[in-house]
């Protein structure tokens, strides 16, 4: 299946070894979208590198930005003010819903259901409108700054988010109605691409892929960052770790994110939105590894500073790159038609895989 394949979410080439219809081995050829982000990081100042981070996982740009800014704040031993942290949480959760919506739409399209795609894009459009009103950009938002936020929350932010969350509850009902009990959908996803818990941990899968295999671990709960410790939300966990469980986990995650947003907009604390951080950042020499729960999994930043304006080394731990490793063992023994479903359920974004 060549790089221009209609259903590989970007430029991914999969070499399949087939016995008739059955897949007996596979090898992912990646690197088509490699832009050398980490090399560029070593030649840019900390603030200048922030927009590059959005281009990696272009579907969930806001959470990339959050991860990077928080990593540098940890490096500077600086804490973002509470108001900034709450607004950051709201925007990141909205981005998670948007990312899952895009996943649901394209995944359902690959398996043949035409309608969910348009429903998902209708909701996603509303979220992108909120981003546009907040920071002018829809996709690569560069919404956050190191130390806090650049823009004050626009006045109708709470109302927009509330209107969206109110409408979203019935919308998820629509998707569930279309797919969850649908016999053909079950036929195409039940028992496809099974990844047991032990294998998931061994292969380093994180995020919904890991949780669907039964491991109850979410960085937002385990090591809360931004303002996640102030809100109550559950972590959905699957049982068998097949495509259907990943579908259920992500649907439940969308609901939880909606709850977080609702709790967050109730009281956005007043106060400054930017910590005391100078124009020129020269973090004291040293290193830090900071990971956040991106929609695809654990997104980690390992930043080493040598006291100068430019980071000495920025290493980005991409969840899609690691989750894609599980593809080979998941695809084995399935038919070619299932390969499409498995790529969909891993929810990989090639910008992040190749960096």
């Amino acid at each position, binding site marked *: 299946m060549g790089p221009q394949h209609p259903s590989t979410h970007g430029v991914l080439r999969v070499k399949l070894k087939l016995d008739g219809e059955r897949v007996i081995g596979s090898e992912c050829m990646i690197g088509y979208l490699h832009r050398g982000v980490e090399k560029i990081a070593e030649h840019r100042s900390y603030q200048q590198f922030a927009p590059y981070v959005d281009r990696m996982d272009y579907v969930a740009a806001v959470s990339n930005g959050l991860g990077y800014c928080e990593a540098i704040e*940890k490096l500077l031993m600086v804490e973002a003010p509470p108001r900034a942290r709450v607004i950051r949480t709201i925007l990141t959760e909205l981005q998670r819903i948007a990312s899952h919506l895009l996943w649901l739409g394209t995944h359902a399209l690959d398996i043949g259901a035409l309608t969910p795609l348009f429903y998902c894009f209708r909701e996603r459009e509303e979220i992108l409108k909120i981003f546009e009103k907040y920071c002018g950009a829809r996709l690569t938002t560069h919404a956050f700054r190191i130390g806090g936020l650049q823009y004050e929350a626009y006045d109708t932010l709470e109302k927009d988010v509330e209107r969206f969350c109110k409408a979203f509850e019935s919308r998820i009902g629509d998707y569930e109605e279309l797919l969850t009990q649908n016999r053909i959908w079950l036929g195409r996803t039940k028992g496809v691409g099974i990844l047991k818990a032990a294998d998931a941990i061994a292969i380093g899968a994180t995020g919904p892929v890991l949780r669907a295999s039964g491991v109850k671990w979410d960085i937002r709960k385990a090591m809360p960052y931004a303002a996640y410790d102030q809100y109550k939300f559950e972590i959905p966990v699957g049982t068998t770790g097949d495509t259907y469980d990943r579908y259920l986990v992500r649907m439940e995650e969308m609901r939880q994110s909606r709850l977080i947003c609702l709790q967050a907009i109730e009281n956005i604390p007043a106060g400054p939105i930017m910590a005391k951080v100078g124009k020129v950042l020269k973090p004291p*020499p*040293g290193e830090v590894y900071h990971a956040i729960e991106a929609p695809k999994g654990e997104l980690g930043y390992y930043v080493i500073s*040598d006291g100068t304006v430019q980071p000495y080394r920025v290493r980005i731990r991409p969840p899609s790159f690691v989750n894609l490793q599980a593809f080979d063992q998941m695809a084995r023994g399935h038919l070619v038609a299932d390969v499409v479903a498995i790529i969909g359920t891993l929810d990989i974004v090639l910008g992040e895989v190749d*960096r």
Partner: protein
Amino acid sequence: MADEPKEQQPSGMPAGDKPASSAAPASTPPAKPAVASPPGAAPPKPAAPPPPKPPVQLQTPLNNELVGRVRAKFGGALVEAIEDRKQAILAVERGRLAEIALYLRDEEKFDLLSDLTAVDWPKREKRFDVVLNLYSFAKNERLRVKAHAGDGEEVPSVAGVWPTANWLEREAFDMFGIVFAGHPNLARILLPDEWQGYPLRKDYDIIEQDTGWVKENLGIESGQ
């Protein structure tokens, strides 16, 4: 990007490698990672405008029970244990990395290898740092294990211990040229196989490209 890539040697970094190291484990390897520069030697650069931060103690020697157990088990292999910004870092000897990794996974329950990457310190004699970021579900803790490797020296592969290291090590090889002994199929993962040179090394200039490969495959003079 308006600014031109500054190549000048970052001023503040203490030049050369400082042999002295605070904790005095039995056999200190000659070179000491500049990163864990002794606290006293280089006064932490106070960021210009912010209020003069007290020279906070960033790299403090770490001595919790984990370090104790590891030192008891491996003694010399554990070169150094420090804590940077409340994150535990163990520097271990390159030769026994795989063994220590197995120990950390089984006894210490660090069952998830979040990330495996490498850092290039051209100034140091043992040039590369292979950095493993581990996480344990049971203890909800992170640990960073480092091993120093010179150019061309082989680092034992941990793909056996954590299968996720397979691609991560291939990427480290692709970007830095570090050879991992015992890796199932060590080959380039992101760049084309015939690409010459290792991009993420400090001496590999950002403008530079494998012009040979570009000319031959893409048929254009040069990437720029």
